[in-house]
């Protein structure tokens, strides 16, 4: 705020000096002009009276000739004064108004406000260094979960969207270049409550610059960055970027997962989706020969992963020399001739993976006419084409923004979840199917909440207190309802981390120890129920022994008295 005040003062220097000089001349002259009072005696206005008169004249208020009618000399000087003072006065007012509309000043004010809003945050928050499609999904989900978010975005139009969006808590946002370290500092890189920086712009260089800047300024801060080019990703990794997200690689891996382990894939999707959504059971992609249209970063990742699953592919590419594809059919795939050349009628699946939505739709429509049994994978680049894609209803619609958002959520909401998912990938498909059926029986068909608790004095006072007293607390106790202990809460412990050793789906009888970290998934009700047991020693004792600990001192004494007898 200080700097803004100085900015205003500096700009107003010239008009203010002009006003002072003009006023002083006018006042001085007026006090020297000879006049005559009602009795015909010579009389002159005092300096104070002159000041009063010039003040009301210059501001065009004009009270008239007081206290006596003026002499010709006074009127002459006053006429001169009017022109001398009124013009600078309006000049100054005009200058002030221009200054208030000045874009530099406004920018300074909004920047200052943003920095203050961030500095005043009293709870953990994430910095989003863009507000594109994936970042807006991310911001919305985090906000719904009650986590605070701060946004820096270089395009004002996107921020206007954020302005209009209904959010639970205020999202401070600034229209600025996230690459500049000063903007990152304003966004709270040094803030004690900052829990991470997420940079998801579609420009790899920007993401790299942000990741490097953050790691240099605050090396302990987790950074999630999007990178599509391998060299950029390697560069980020060398700077210690915690999570590098490449939507194309991720999708390729997921597609491969779908081909060979559909159960693992469903589990993965289910646990990273937005809580409350219902998930449709996905179809299993068929084995056989696939036609891949577009051999860009997306196409390459798909082909690579399909080939790892021993699926042969035929590549259709419009500019093979640009994409480095040696063995492919030249053409865009939008016309039937190219697709026939790729022997579409005998293929089992088609991947439309160019970076143009309309071309992708055209490819699959043409292919579908030639071979209606095809399994269709389509890449969607822009979210506003949603309606068109819904109309077509492909078997798999790949949308980079959603993949990125899911991946980020997995890392941000529950860091244990990312670890869990990595472990899941090493498990067999049947194991995953079994876990899914167990989860569905407990939490229902909708996407559950995921959360982690760590057994510590500050987060779970009731458990630590009982453990210190020597009372064993098991995982089973945490799944009991603190209102009615015979009932079970709708939650499942997914992972237990003890001394950095993960235990996948720990048995319910496992005893807890201080320092354990547990990942749960379950309904929102179960989450609040668990919150009661871990914080309230009375509730936890009831859950363990079925004994209601009395609240009042008198009743407690009475109980003790009874039990001694």
């Amino acid at each position, binding site marked *: 705020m200080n700097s803004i005040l100085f900015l205003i003062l500096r700009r107003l220097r010239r008009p203010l000096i002009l006003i*002072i000089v003009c006023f*002083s001349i006018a006042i001085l002259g007026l006090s020297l002009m000879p006049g005559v009072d009602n009795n015909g005696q010579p009389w002159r206005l005092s300096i104070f009276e002159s000041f009063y008169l010039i003040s009301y004249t210059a501001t065009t208020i004009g009270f008239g000739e007081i206290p006596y009618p003026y002499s010709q000399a006074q009127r002459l000087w006053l006429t001169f004064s009017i022109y001398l003072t009124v013009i600078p006065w309006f000049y100054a007012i005009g200058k002030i108004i221009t200054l208030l509309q000045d874009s530099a000043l406004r920018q300074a004010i909004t920047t200052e406000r943003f920095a203050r809003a961030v500095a005043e945050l009293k709870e953990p928050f994430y910095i989003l260094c863009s507000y594109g499609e994936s970042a807006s999904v991310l911001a919305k989900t985090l906000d719904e979960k009650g986590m605070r978010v701060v946004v820096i975005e270089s395009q004002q139009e996107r921020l206007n969207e954020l302005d209009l969006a209904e959010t639970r808590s205020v999202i401070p946002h600034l229209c600025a270049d996230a690459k500049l370290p000063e903007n990152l500092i304003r966004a709270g890189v040094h803030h004690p409550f900052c829990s991470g920086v997420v940079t998801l712009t579609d420009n790899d260089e920007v993401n790299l610059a942000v990741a490097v800047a953050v790691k240099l300024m605050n090396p302990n801060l987790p950074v999630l960055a999007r990178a599509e080019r391998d060299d950029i990703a390697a560069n980020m990794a060398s700077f210690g970027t915690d999570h590098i997200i490449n939507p194309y690689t991720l999708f390729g891996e997921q597609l491969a997962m779908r081909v060979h382990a559909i159960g693992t894939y469903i589990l993965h999707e289910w646990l990273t989706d937005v809580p409350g959504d219902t998930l449709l059971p996905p179809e299993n992609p068929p084995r056989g020969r696939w036609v891949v249209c577009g051999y860009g970063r997306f196409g390459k990742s798909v082909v690579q992963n399909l080939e790892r699953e021993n699926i042969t592919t035929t590549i259709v590419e419009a500019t093979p020399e640009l994409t480095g594809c040696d063995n492919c059919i030249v053409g865009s795939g939008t016309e039937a001739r190219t697709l026939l050349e790729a022997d579409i009628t005998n293929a089992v699946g088609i991947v439309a993976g160019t970076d143009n939505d309309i071309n992708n739709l055209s490819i699959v429509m043409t292919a579908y006419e030639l071979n209606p049994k095809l399994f269709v994978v389509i890449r969607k680049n822009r979210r506003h084409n949603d309606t068109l894609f819904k109309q077509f209803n492909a078997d798999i619609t790949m949308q980079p923004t959603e993949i990125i958002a899911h991946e980020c959520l997995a890392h941000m909401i529950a860091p244990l979840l990312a670890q869990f998912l990595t472990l899941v990938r090493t498990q067999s498909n049947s194991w995953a199917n079994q876990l899914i059926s167990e989860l569905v029986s407990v939490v229902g068909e909708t996407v559950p909440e995921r959360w982690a608790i760590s057994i510590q004095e500050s987060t779970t006072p009731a458990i630590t207190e009982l453990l210190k007293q020597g009372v064993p607390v098991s995982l089973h106790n945490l799944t009991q309802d603190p209102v009615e202990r015979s009932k079970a809460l709708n939650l499942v412990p997914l992972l237990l981390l003890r001394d950095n050793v993960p235990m996948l789906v720990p048995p319910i009888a496992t005893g807890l120890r201080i320092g354990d970290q547990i990942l749960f998934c379950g309904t929102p009700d179960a989450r609040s129920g668990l919150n009661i047991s871990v914080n309230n020693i009375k509730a936890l004792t009831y859950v363990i022994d079925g004994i209601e600990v009395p609240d009042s001192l008198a009743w407690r004494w009475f109980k003790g008295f009874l039990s001694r007898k």
Partner: protein
Amino acid sequence: MNLEKVIFGFFIVLAMTLNFGFFLGDIDNAHHHHVYELYAAIIVSLIATVLKFGDRTHVGAILLSTSLAADIQLIAAAILWAALDGKMDQASLTVYIVSLSGGALMANFVSVILLISETIGQRR
């Protein structure tokens, strides 16, 4: 040589000298203190204040604050003069006004000292 610096120094020194000129004389003798001299001191002091606006350095901030201190006392003297003229005896009113201007003189004096010390510190 820089015209801006000349004007800046001129107004700061002029503010002090005018103030001193008004202050000079018997403290209770109205004839020793002319109203136009106070008027000139106020105007020059105001201009000096505005000239100091917008300097973000530490010395700049102190210079501005000394000027504001001088302005306040000079304007207070002028208000007393305008409000109480003819309502109380001339001698005691003059004492009020002149002592206020004496306070302003101190502030202006500090301002000039700061200006000199900064100039010496420049070593060019």
